[in-house]
């Protein structure tokens, strides 16, 4: 792919982010008029900011890649990512805002008046934040590799350095403007090329077999295999090979591969004829956003789908960078309106990645073989339109992708650094916030460089599952159940979140192997870990009735009463 446009586009996005972050406030809010100065952030602006912060690499690149590889089943991902806000709207948004809490540990302290629960919640915020940062860095690495052929780790390092510098220098002062800007940038970066791609698809005669199984090549296509893979063939496949297949070396030889499994060495060149079906590939070592446990879905699709739905529906409310944005809403009702607007904005955005996925199945099916299905979004403009137009659209998409990494990563870094500064590092002050920022970014960066090819959709899924099993019970029971006690909350978070964490850690470590019944259970833990978290929290709370914090009634009244009715609430 031509990088002469893409690199300036990425640089432009970074510079624009820094400029809006540093000067947005000065330009838009320097006034001598008090009326202008004390205008609060409207629900729509705040919603755009929340959406901008929320739409991450997994959304921008990952979903298209998943749809490309796995087909329409994967549409549950965008549905889940969006519907999480519905749950947030119904059960959490307004009371959370009225609680006056800025972060999740603040909420734990406000509700339960316990320093221990506060620290535990802080630990989970840091854990979820780090897990969520990891895929952002790896997505950046992948994007830069696709664009310029740079080594894997470079993109991650660039994003990490840029984000740390911006956040530590206080460059996110006008964070609402930056994130809202990032949302519209991301939407434009997907929408405009998508329109052109659909036009190109129309002029191509609007072929409709996108989701035919299996996908087929529409023209003769040469595929270079970068990582050794195993191809599974249902029927014999004619292919021209230069390289090593099943241990035998060929040079430009025309072969008829029989049905069965074939091992392709890295560096091999395969030429597929027009109309050939795309074989099913299994990778020996992961290395992209999409392979993930998608494979294990095929063993127990129903269970896996419900696990996914539960994790994404309930996990959204526990994402630390999303929660802090609700503080910007002036009151509970505004928080609710904001959430409704977020649903609209995110829903609109999520219409686009599946389009790329479907078009990718038509025009770039070989991406399932080369190991970078996530690159579909980046490659399609060049593939379908070509020329300068294709390059420019490709550059736009690349810029949008970097906006996705920057916004999510900076939001997460601020959230994690805030918790580290307040609850972990010894004393307070600006310098400590900088130290916290560096620490917040250093750990996931080191992890992403060290472990390299971690299946990234898993890390996102893990973050959602842990958040759903620890913070969802805390928030829902904390807001709606007056008999919650500090020991109950702590036990629930530890058992629910801890078991989810261990389950996916075990899966990542490759235990137990594919096919075992236990594997699906551990790979999609939300379905049992969320009820486990709730149950533990309820049972331990009921067992310790004496520990219900005094003043609970007052606290809950504050959570649920509209601000206008609130008079002196003594706690």
């Amino acid at each position, binding site marked *: 792919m031509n990088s002469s446009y893409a690199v300036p586009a990425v640089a432009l996005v970074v510079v624009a982010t820094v400029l809006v972050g540093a000067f947005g406030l000065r330009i838009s809010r320097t006034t001598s008029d*008090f009326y202008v*100065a*004390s205008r609060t*952030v409207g629900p729509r602006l705040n919603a755009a900011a929340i959406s901008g912060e929320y739409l991450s690499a997994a959304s921008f690149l990952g979903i298209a890649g998943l749809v490309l590889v796995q087909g329409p089943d994967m549409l549950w991902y965008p549905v889940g990512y969006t519907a999480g806000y519905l749950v947030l709207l119904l059960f959490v948004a307004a009371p959370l805002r009225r609680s006056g809490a800025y972060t999740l540990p*603040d909420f734990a302290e*406000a509700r339960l008046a316990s320093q221990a629960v506060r620290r535990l919640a802080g630990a989970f915020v840091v854990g979820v934040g780090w897990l969520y940062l990891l895929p952002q860095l790896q997505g950046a690495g992948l994007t830069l590799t696709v664009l310029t052929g740079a080594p894997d780790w470079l993109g991650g390092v660039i994003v990490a350095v840029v984000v740390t510098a911006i956040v530590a220098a206080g460059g996110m*002062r006008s964070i609402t403007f930056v994130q809202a800007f990032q949302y519209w940038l991301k939407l434009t970066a997907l929408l405009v090329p998508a329109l052109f791609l659909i036009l190109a698809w129309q002029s191509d005669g609007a072929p409709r077999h996108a989701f035919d199984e299996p996908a087929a090549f529409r023209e003769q296509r040469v595929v270079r295999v970068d990582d050794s893979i195993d191809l599974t063939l249902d029927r014999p496949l004619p292919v021209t090979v230069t390289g090593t297949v099943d241990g035998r070396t060929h040079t430009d030889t025309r072969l008829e591969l029989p049905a069965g499994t074939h091992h392709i060495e890295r560096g091999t060149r395969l030429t597929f004829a027009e109309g050939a079906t795309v074989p099913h590939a299994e990778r020996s070592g992961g290395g992209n956003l999409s392979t993930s446990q998608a494979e294990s879905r095929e063993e127990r699709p129903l269970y896996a789908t419900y696990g996914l739905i539960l994790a994404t529906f309930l996990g959204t409310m526990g994402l630390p960078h999303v929660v802090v944005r609700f503080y910007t809403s002036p009151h509970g009702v505004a928080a609710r309106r904001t959430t409704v607007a977020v649903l609209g904005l995110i829903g609109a955005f999520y219409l686009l990645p599946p389009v790329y996925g479907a078009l990718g199945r038509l025009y770039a099916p070989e991406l399932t073989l080369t190991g970078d299905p996530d690159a579909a979004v980046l490659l399609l403009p060049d593939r379908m339109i070509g020329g300068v137009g294709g390059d420019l659209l490709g550059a736009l998409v690349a810029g949008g992708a970097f906006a996705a990494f920057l916004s999510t990563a900076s939001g997460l870094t601020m959230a994690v650094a805030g918790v580290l500064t307040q609850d972990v590092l010894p004393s307070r002050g600006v310098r400590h916030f900088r130290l916290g920022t560096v620490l917040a970014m250093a750990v996931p960066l080191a992890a992403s460089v060290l472990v390299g090819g971690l299946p990234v959709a898993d890390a996102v899924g893990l973050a959602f599952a842990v958040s759903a099993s620890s913070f969802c019970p805390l928030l829902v029971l904390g807001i709606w159940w007056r008999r919650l006690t500090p020991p109950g909350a702590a036990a629930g978070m530890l058992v629910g979140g801890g078991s989810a964490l261990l389950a996916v850690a075990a899966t990542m470590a490759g235990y137990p192997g594919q096919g075992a019944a236990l594997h699906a259970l551990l790979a999609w833990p939300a379905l049992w870990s969320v009820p486990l978290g709730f149950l533990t929290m309820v049972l331990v709370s009921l067992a310790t009735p004496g520990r219900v914090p005094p003043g609970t009634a007052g606290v809950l009244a504050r959570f649920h009463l509209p601000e206008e009715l609130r008079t002196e609430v003594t706690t």
Partner: protein
Amino acid sequence: MSGFLAGLCVAVLPVLALGVWLGRRTARAKSLAGLGTPVEHATFETLHTASLAAPPLRAGLTEETARRSARKLRSLLGTDALCLTDRAQVLVWDGDGAHHRGEIMERLAGALDTGRGEAFQLTCDSLDCSVRWAVVAPLTVDDRVHGALVACAPRESAVLVRAAGEVARWVSVQLELADLDQSRTRLIEAEIKALRAQISPHFIFNSLAVIASFVRTDPERARELLLEFADFTRYSFRRHGDFTTLADELHAIDHYLALVRARFGDRLSVTLQIAPEVLPVALPFLCLQPLVENAVKHGLEGKAVSPGKCHIQITAQDAGAEALVVIEDDGAGMDPELLRRILAREASPSGGIGLSNVDDRLRQVYGDDHGLVIETATGAGMKITVRLPKYQPGVHSAGRLIRE
């Protein structure tokens, strides 16, 4: 392989955290273990146990605090069961024989009335019950009996009576301290109540004089100013809630400046730069307005000789978990040494008690880290920085955000 490594990392993190936590908990006890003779060691142990039991009791005698200190107190006395009561009920029973709860309470009435310790035998049907004797030691604070400490043992023992009496006296001292803590909190609350809403009488006189001067020449303006004055005084005198939001405080400052501008006209200009993210931050009521008042005074005083212009800049920035409010003027400034003495209340300021009052309240609400930071020198203006945490337990604005 890399997946395995990642999984390992994730699995190791909680274990590490647990290790650090356990390490911290056990470190102190171990460092004492190898020290001194057995007698000294025993003394250390006793003092350590006593010091562990003290902090919960410092919060007063409740079910929660009794539960947290009872086990430590029992190990201090070395009895089979220990129970703490208030005047009406058993708060906690630590150890065997919890079925004696009701009986203890009945037999306790005398001791609670007289405030004198006693020992009595318990009646028990169950043969393997090790609790036969109860030693009662009342807990008294300022000659009032708050409750009792009951130590139970299999047989009568003069040593236990003596020890229980001593422990009860020690607990009483802790409770007295708790009483002191409480009255200190009440004092601080009273102080905050007294400190709040001190709008200066000068300001009221001046405002009324300015409004009077407009009544004939520009009645419409006078009416507007009167309304501003009403709004400002309503805000200042309101009785509900000790806290407000930054947005509301800014409105009060706006009303205040409108009145000041009416007096000084073009000589005063104000620039604002407020990050919308921090507008909902809750803060002690009327803690920024005195700072602005101070800036106006200094700004205009400095130019008193040659009536020039004064510029005031108010910025509020979003800084992670805090809001950073800066109020800056280009006026006369102040000698830092004098300022230090004013804040330490060693020197009385020329007019008003604004700065030290605000400083005290901020420190009381947010802790000593969050006092005013003032940069100034004679003739160099003054820059006051306030750091307001976005969340602080117990700080809730009494909501009045009806405006949209």
